[in-house]
């Protein structure tokens, strides 16, 4: 990664930071949780051009690597930006790489892999797709015999039913019965055996890292301002240490998110997501716990901003495969390989998912 490219990714994140810190407040988030699409915010993002940051240049994108785009994705997480920005960026990445046209507007992603029949029709289901009701498109990975395809679906061709989540982001359960995609293409090994799941897991990890940073700065601010027993509560060692532990968890999440992004760039998204999601789930749990303890009763109220962050942390732990799902998968792999292979497995230099190291 050259210094120049790093700058593009960071500049982009700074632009987003300015936008989100100015625009995204509790009211905007509430409106979206009640089902409204934040058109104004989306249009501002379009103007910045961040939607195509991960799309290859030949597809009209900026061609950033995931590592370079990580600060932008994390910033969106940090402010709980109430739009499907990360999802749409990933869709543009995949569509552009597959040589498919990238549509305007937001795109939702399906975790589950579906089936593509000989007639070019897609069938399958997805148990949870955030944002779909606010998007015109759903991106699906579908199998046909041994080949893997990327399929861009028109939302109108799908059966949606609303589902409730802790995040209260408008979300749907999807049934897809012999639906004809707008477009589809074979994608070889662009994604591995788990389809888009590791990419969604990577996105959620990076978003959680951003949120943990946000919670941390809120806690530091509150710790310095809120007085009890005649002094700021941040002076009490018990509170200091709780916030310090939160900082450690936030740092681990951040390192995990960046690790996962770097692995996507090397075509080992599964390896990256496995480690990152397994590690960041517990970080989110402990971070949210500590933040609520620091803020006390006021942080438990509806009017306080805290729960808009903590509910997302609780939700994102579970999306893209929970920490327990990934940890079990990793554990089974490690156990199957045997004790002698454990350390070599950890130190093995990067090889693509599915290749022997």
């Amino acid at each position: 990664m050259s210094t120049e490219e790093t700058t593009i990714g960071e500049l982009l994140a700074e632009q987003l930071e300015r936008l989100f810190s100015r625009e995204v407040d509790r009211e905007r988030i509430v409106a979206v949780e009640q089902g409204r699409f934040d058109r104004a915010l989306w249009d501002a993002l379009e103007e910045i051009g961040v939607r195509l940051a991960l799309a290859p240049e030949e597809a009209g994108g900026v061609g950033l690597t995931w590592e370079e785009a990580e600060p932008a994705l994390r910033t969106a997480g940090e402010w709980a930006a109430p739009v499907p920005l990360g999802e749409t960026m990933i869709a543009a990445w995949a569509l552009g790489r597959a040589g498919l046209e990238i549509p305007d507007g937001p795109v939702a992603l399906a975790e589950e892999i579906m089936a593509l029949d000989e007639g070019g029709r897609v069938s399958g289901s997805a148990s949870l797709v955030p944002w779909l009701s606010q998007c015109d498109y759903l991106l699906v990975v579908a199998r046909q015999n041994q080949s893997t395809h990327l399929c861009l679906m028109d939302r109108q061709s799908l059966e949606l039913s609303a589902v409730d989540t802790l995040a209260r982001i408008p979300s749907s359960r999807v049934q897809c019965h012999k639906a004809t995609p707008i477009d589809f293409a074979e994608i070889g090994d662009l994604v591995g055996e788990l389809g888009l799941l590791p990419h969604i897991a990577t996105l959620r990890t990076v978003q959680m890292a951003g949120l943990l940073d946000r919670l941390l700065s809120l806690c530091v601010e509150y710790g310095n301002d809120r007085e009890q027993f005649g002094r700021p509560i941040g002076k009490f060692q018990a509170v200091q240490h709780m916030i310090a532990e939160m900082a450690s968890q936030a740092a681990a999440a951040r390192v995990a998110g960046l690790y996962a992004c770097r692995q996507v760039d090397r075509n080992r998204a599964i390896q990256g997501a496995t480690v990152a999601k397994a590690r960041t789930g517990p970080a989110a749990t402990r971070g949210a716990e500590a933040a609520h303890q620091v803020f006390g009763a006021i942080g438990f109220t509806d009017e306080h901003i805290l729960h808009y962050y903590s509910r997302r942390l609780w939700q994102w732990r579970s999306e893209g495969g929970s920490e327990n799902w990934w940890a079990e998968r990793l554990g089974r792999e490690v156990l199957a390989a045997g004790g002698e292979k454990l350390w070599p497995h950890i130190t093995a230099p990067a090889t693509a998912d599915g290749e022997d190291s």
Partner: protein
Amino acid sequence: MSSPFTFKPLEIPPELEPLREQVREFLREAGRDWSGWKVGHSWTGFDKDFSRAVADKSWIGMTWPTQYGGGERSHLERHVVVEEMLAAGAPLGAHWFGDRQSGPLLLRLGTEEQRRRFLPAIARGEASFCIGLSEPNSGSDLASIRAKAVRTDGGWLLTGTKIWTTNAHLCDYMIGLFRTGGGDTKVKHEGLSQFLIDMKTPGIEVRPIRDLTGENHFNEVFFDEAFVPDDMLVGEEGNGWKQATSELAFERSQPDRFMSCFPVLPELVDAINKRGSPDRLAAREIGATVADLVILREMSLSVLGQLAEGKTPAREAALVKDLGNSHEQQIPNLARDLLDLPATIEQGNRLSELEGILTQNVPSYSLRGGTREILRGIIAKGLGLR
């Protein structure tokens, strides 16, 4: 964008894999007869013969200039050697403190003569160092130390007591922190100086302290007007606090802060497999532990990259040690949770011996090199909690 900590990735390039293979080969041979009990002592285990064998491979002082007996190799090459040694639970104690801490200190702040005299001896595996910081009444509040150095003809007379000094009874030299001035509670960080002390100096008495394992690893060291020549002052007189604390980023971020119990994990994996097909909980816990380790390794490498660039990431190092200690401390219990371990320590059974020594040893991990509370205080200050 708002994180107050820097963790930029650093990767070990595939070109270093042959070196890793060499170390593994060496350890397979050297470690053939190591018992679980010995391996459980990991990097504090003191084995001079082993350290000399490591030196023969040029794996001590790897990054130092060749003129001081070093290998002028990269920090990443050293990291590869170190993590392989730790993964095998190798007994590094006879050279570890010199290699990790005292050598780099002398390289940065020592006089030319000190470097020429001590660095090659450390690199040959001949000079073992211990670190004299804590005192009976100064533990976490290190700046309150009272052992003093008083000027005399051609040098200093040291008087006072150091305590919890790991391997002092076996080491040739100590880097000790003594009061040369100040001492006022308001300026207690001032007037401290670091000395390079020959442990054979008359007036030094080392009294072993048996620890809860029944063994003797740390000591009380008494100084009664022990003479240290002028040229054994390290760095600047009165600047000892700054010097000693600037070593801490080296001391707190390396894999020895999260791999002390690693040798349990391969044994645990095999023991779970032996019982039949693994259950969900066992698989989950193993996976979570491995993921935790991978991320700690990433964090440690990142701090290494910053150190190699000449930065002093003290807060990041504190954070790695805090997370790392918690990781390593829970491993003996993980094995208890996932297996039905007998209530006896079975001699000759590697896992049983490891569990035996490590269950007793892990409480020291979050005490040595800065307690968990001190580390969290450093992190909190770094966050801007006033």
